[in-house]
């Protein structure tokens, strides 16, 4: 609808519906939600133009010409009118309530045979565990076509929200308590998944992508595929987990944590003044138990990011071979 405006010509992920109001209905309960949305939409359009029309009409008709022109009619009571404009909205509202409630019951009760997924939200990235998968894949997940899928989600620090606009599914992800959200994809394609509950500095960067694939492709377990070249895989892991705090460029600037450029083999000075060489065990330790050694000047809350302490990445999130890949990638970070 507003495409005429100058937009970066990056092809949008997928087209929106006719009136440009709703993303594509790509899940089973999406059509029902859209139906209720457009029911409310057309009622609102009707009442809006009804009220605006009345106002414009009566203003033109009864404009005050002379200074002391009295009102055309001083009617202050019209019981039948008052009864009508009380009952009619009540009936419409009750219909919308019932429709909305029924729709929500489908949304909240997952069918029995749904595939069990797990999702962990932590400050500013997502990790998903597919059915039968040991570890977690960060940032994206694959969903089979026309199969119910149920997510058990929890967060490790603050509130987040699991929201896929195309599936009309949204559920907050709470720390300290499991929450479930389910949907059944009906259209192939990849759709954005966004965090809808404010969760801190990079709340707007905390996105993931849903890939809806056919059953055969799903059985090939694409989430296990990782680039053969360990350096490329190390970089992929860095991009998914570490970018929100560590920079890895030659600019010398830092965010909440040390800059990883040319860090391999360097002598790191710690908070307590001791120096330690940056080798494999130092990297493994700072990923598994980050509180063990803290580099000088990066105690939690010390720098302008006042970020909290680094969260520990268990082997479920980054497997041991993943750390080797990261180590090899770190070695390439020198000019």
């Amino acid at each position, binding site marked *: 609808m507003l495409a005429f405006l100058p937009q970066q010509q990056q092809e949008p992920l997928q087209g929106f519906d006719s009136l440009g109001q709703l993303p594509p209905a790509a899940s089973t309960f999406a059509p029902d939600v859209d139906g209720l949305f457009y029911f409310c939409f057309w009622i609102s359009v009707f009442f809006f133009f009804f009220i605006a029309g009345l106002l414009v009409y009566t203003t033109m008709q009864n404009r005050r010409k002379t200074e002391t022109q009295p009102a055309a009619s001083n009617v202050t009571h019209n019981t039948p009118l008052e009864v009508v404009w009380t009952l009619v909205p009540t009936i419409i509202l009750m219909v919308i309530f019932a429709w909305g409630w029924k729709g929500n*019951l489908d949304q909240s*009760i997952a069918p029995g045979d749904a595939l069990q997924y797990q999702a962990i939200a932590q400050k500013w990235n997502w990790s998903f565990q597919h059915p039968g998968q040991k570890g977690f894949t960060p940032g994206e997940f694959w969903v089979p076509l026309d199969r119910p899928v149920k997510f058990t989600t929890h967060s*490790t620090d603050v509130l987040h929200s699991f929201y896929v606009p195309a599936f009309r599914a949204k559920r907050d992800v709470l720390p*300290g308590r*499991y929450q479930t959200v389910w949907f059944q994809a009906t259209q192939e394609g990849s759709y954005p998944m966004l965090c809808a509950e404010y969760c801190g500095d990079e709340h707007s960067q905390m996105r993931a992508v849903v890939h809806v694939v056919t059953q055969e492709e799903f059985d090939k377990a694409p989430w296990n595929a990782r680039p053969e070249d360990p350096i490329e895989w190390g970089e992929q892991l860095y991009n998914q987990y570490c970018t929100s705090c560590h920079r890895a460029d030659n600019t010398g600037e830092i965010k909440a944590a040390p800059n990883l450029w040319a860090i391999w083999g360097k002598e790191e000075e710690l908070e307590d003044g001791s120096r330690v060489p940056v080798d494999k065990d130092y990297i493994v330790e700072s990923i598994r138990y980050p509180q063990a050694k803290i580099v000088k000047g990066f105690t939690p809350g010390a720098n302008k990011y006042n970020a909290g302490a680094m*969260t520990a990445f268990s082997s479920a999130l980054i497997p041991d071979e993943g750390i080797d890949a990261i180590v090899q990638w770190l070695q390439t970070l020198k000019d």
Partner: protein
Amino acid sequence: MADAHAEHGEVQIDESLKTHVCSGGQFFGVYIALLFLTIVTVGVSYFDFGDFNMLIAMAIASCKAALVMAIFMHLRWDTPINNIAFIGSLIFLSLLFLFTVADFSTRSDMEPVHGIPAEVNNAFDWKSK
């Protein structure tokens, strides 16, 4: 607050203020009743009535509260608006209780969820202190 009406109108005595005064005996009677109810509530707490514990404790406390409100705070002989205001506040408070407790008690009826996720960042573990 002297400004505009500093000039002295003549002083008029206004007799309209009549406040109700209870007898000393009434107050002492209420005092004894309150002490007695305290002893009762402490006594009852030694027995276990299962779910009714909370009900009994709150019933006794409400009786004591009603006594204090009605006699000590003159609500019985006060203008109706003060009563409405105070009873109204208890009603609105019960709304807060009603909906929050309803939420917590029927939380995962429809979609049962099992277990509590273990790892929450820097969870408080007083044993390790």
